[in-house]
């Protein structure tokens, strides 16, 4: 039994130490730091009322708490109690509480159905069956070189920081499953590799929700939507995002032709 050291002169020496422990682990450290002190700093900055109004926007008042919640550094209960102390009326933070509740919901589902972590819960509602989807992510996706500018920007953020805005995660998942027709399981595994908050329940069941194997219909997005919510953060010009530059009706017909034929 080897007792490992816990005191380091700086973050670089800690990173070197961990890299030596796990030479198989790819990449570098995130700018997001672990530990209770970092978590408390983030918690102190939370504005649960503004969160409700702006959370879907790339520059919205999101909390960044999910890596700390996933590792149990903060409990959902503690975050909820803090949010209640930061509002006039609890109804003002309904959206914030619902986001915490989503995590609780996913946890309960996986506890009741461990097999849902990796098995399709329901068939795809895309006009395709599971066997029509590739089992492996293409290299251009894992490398962030798809040629779709906003998607590549989100992928690079995922690789470099281990954190991506929730709305952008939905774009990425939808792009992987519906635009590239790759099984959601491959995408979920990819996210779990990178995301600091990579949680089996929240991550995988959210992928199933986007894929339509745990929802009534597939989640689609287009460039207009990305431009509305992330126009100030990523390149959303039509020239560099061609596959996304279409109406929802057109995308639906292009991506799910079997559904159109069956109508």
């Amino acid at each position, binding site marked *: 039994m080897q007792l490992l050291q816990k005191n380091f002169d700086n973050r670089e020496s800690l990173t070197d*130490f961990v890299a030596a422990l796990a030479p198989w*682990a790819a990449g570098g450290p995130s700018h997001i730091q672990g530990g209770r002190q970092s978590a408390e700093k983030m918690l102190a900055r939370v504005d649960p009322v503004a969160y409700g109004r702006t959370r879907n926007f790339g520059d919205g008042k999101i909390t960044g708490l999910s890596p700390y919640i996933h590792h149990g550094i903060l409990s959902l209960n503690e975050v909820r109690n803090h949010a209640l102390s930061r509002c006039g009326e609890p109804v003002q933070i309904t959206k914030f509480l619902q986001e915490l509740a989503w995590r609780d919901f996913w946890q309960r589902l996986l506890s009741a159905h461990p097999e849902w972590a990796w098995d399709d819960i329901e068939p795809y509602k895309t006009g395709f069956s599971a066997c029509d989807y590739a089992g492996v992510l293409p290299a251009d996706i894992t490398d962030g070189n798809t040629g779709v500018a906003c998607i590549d920007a989100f992928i690079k953020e995922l690789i470099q920081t281990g954190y991506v805005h929730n709305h952008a995660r939905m774009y990425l998942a939808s792009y992987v499953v519906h635009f590239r027709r790759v099984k959601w399981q491959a995408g979920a595994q990819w996210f779990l590799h990178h995301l600091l908050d990579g949680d089996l329940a929240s991550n995988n069941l959210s992928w199933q929700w986007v894929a339509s194997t745990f929802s009534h219909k597939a989640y689609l997005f287009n460039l207009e939507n990305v431009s509305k919510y992330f126009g100030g953060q990523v390149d959303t010009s039509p020239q560099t995002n061609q596959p996304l530059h279409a109406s929802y009706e057109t995308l639906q017909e292009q991506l799910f032709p079997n559904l159109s034929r069956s109508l």
Partner: protein
Amino acid sequence: MNPALICLHEGALRITHPIFNVAPIGTKAIYVWDDEYLRRANYSLKRLVFIYETLCDLPVDVVRGDTRTIVVAMTPSMLYVPATNNPSILSKFAGITPATPLNVVDDDVFAVMEKTTEARRFFQYWSKVEKSAFLHNGGAPA
């Protein structure tokens, strides 16, 4: 008889987790840096650094090796482990019982469900927990 032992995992890395109240006062706490488990989990270095930074903040010994081997060798009178629904984490503790008595400790409750029937969609679930979700400690006694 050997003392009890708390064995944390990556989903419960805080000193205020109920496990520290359930276990006898002064119970030693460890985190096992299980190379084989982490390699199988295929975490990127940034995930591992985040976990390690968090461990450095905690009053726990970080020991390297196979979880089952280390725990069994310490022969604790009782092993306390935070509850988890992650099968990979659960598998680390497989085979430890019955030689070592195991006490799995739940985290604080976020919300109490009004009915125990499963909610398959979020808003079915939300309608059952909404009242509790708006309350300090979910309405549970302090």
